[in-house]
């Protein structure tokens, strides 16, 4: 293999994926150049299947030919591979533990809970709404009056959570759940994050997300 052929960064991703967006935000924060490759999830590329044979999922960050998988692992890798600028995790080990704890919580709860909002109907949807509101309030409580979840610096938890804000419009349209009304203290945080170029350039238009959700609903036969 020619030297330099594998050099550089490639991000295998899917435009609407909040997990992929985390990686895009992290790379942008570090000001690192990379090649973005859109995957067709119904026809996954040989490179994706080779790079993530275990889960066969995006996002995958390929750095000089070596794949890193799982979005929060990728974000931490990006932080550690470019330690000289824009730290995404705090230096103090206790603060890092708190960041990992809350990022882990976002990971465990947001996607599954959010998905239920548009996949379910009737009583099941009402249950899902209650669950989702609880999570929002928990996050609202943790944010408190801080600028970002980690304090003054934009970091791991913000990156883990902010992509899901592009789905708020869809949650309202499908489940009549207004995240802004249920967790008003998150609103200034969302605005603050979106003012960052890394975030505004990485997140999709909420209306396009809603179009996608409607498409998925057709595919799943949900009215």
């Amino acid at each position, binding site marked *: 293999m020619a030297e330099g052929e594998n050099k550089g960064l490639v991000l295998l991703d899917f435009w609407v994926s909040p997990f992929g967006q985390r990686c895009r935000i992290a790379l942008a924060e570090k000001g690192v150049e990379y090649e973005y490759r859109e995957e067709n999830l119904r026809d996954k590329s040989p490179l994706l299947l080779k790079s993530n044979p275990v889960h066969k999922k995006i996002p995958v960050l390929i750095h000089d030919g*070596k794949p890193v998988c*799982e979005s929060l*692992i990728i974000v931490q890798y990006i932080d*550690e591979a470019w330690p000289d600028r824009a730290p995404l995790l705090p230096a103090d080990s*206790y603060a890092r533990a708190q960041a*990992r*704890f809350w990022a882990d919580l976002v990971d465990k709860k947001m996607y*599954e809970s959010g998905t239920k909002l548009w996949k379910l109907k009737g009583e099941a949807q009402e249950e899902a709404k209650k669950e989702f509101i609880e999570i929002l309030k*928990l996050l609202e409580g943790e944010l408190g009056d801080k600028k970002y979840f980690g304090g003054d610096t934009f970091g791991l938890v913000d990156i883990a959570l902010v992509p899901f804000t592009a789905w708020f419009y869809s949650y309202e349209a499908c489940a009549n759940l207004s995240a802004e009304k249920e967790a008003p203290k998150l609103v200034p945080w969302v605005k603050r994050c979106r003012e960052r170029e890394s975030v505004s350039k990485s997140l999709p238009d909420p209306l396009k997300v809603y179009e996608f959700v409607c498409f998925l609903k057709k595919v799943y036969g949900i009215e």
Partner: protein
Amino acid sequence: MGEAKQVTLYGFWLSPYCALVHLALKLKGVAYEYVEEDLANKSATILQLNPVHQKVPVLVVDGKPVAESRVILEYIDETWAEPSFVPSDPYSRARVRFWVDFFYQRLIRTMPSHPLDDLSTIGTPRKVLANSMVPPSYAIIRSQGEELEKATKEFIEVLRILEKGIMEDFPRKGPFIHGSSPGLLDIIVGTGNAGTKAIEEVADVKLFNEEMTPQLYSYVHAFLSLDLVKNTVVPYDKVFEAIKERRMMALSSSKE
């Protein structure tokens, strides 16, 4: 090196997640106090220290609590430097984290909160979930016949993938996956062994041995041979009794 910290671990004696933390602290040579929690009767302390999940383990260092076993392990590694649990280069570190995550995703939990997690519910009826929704270990404990065979195959497949992955990502450079001293993967995979062995005996299945996954087997054997580990793990007969009881309850409740 600063002054010694005040360290307290809140745990449950049978919990493998708590065992992980005991081992990590001991490997780092950290002096700590241990407080046993009655999971059927959670103390106000645990509810205060871990209000989000209300679970053990919780590690409190100089009054500040850390929860979630994986978070605690990395915290311990970063707070007490030697011996290190993860590689120094970012890429190898990312691969260690990947395999830890794989182990947790496929073998320990397939859902955010599953029956085996909540040890306080032992003896109480549980929501009936399909085998595909629970960890393979739990599926094995509660199944018979065809279901048991399927769950067993799944468990073995996970270990096979782990073996292959570890061999590819971490060239052999010592008795442990990490090298000359045990690291994060050694601690996590090694700690799972007692439970695995007990499940094998109780359900009469073969899950983990030298023939099927020779590399993993030798790494786990090296880890379990350490005196420190031998003196810290829950006695096997107690683990066996607990698993046996769980299977009895699961099989009898499925007959109702």
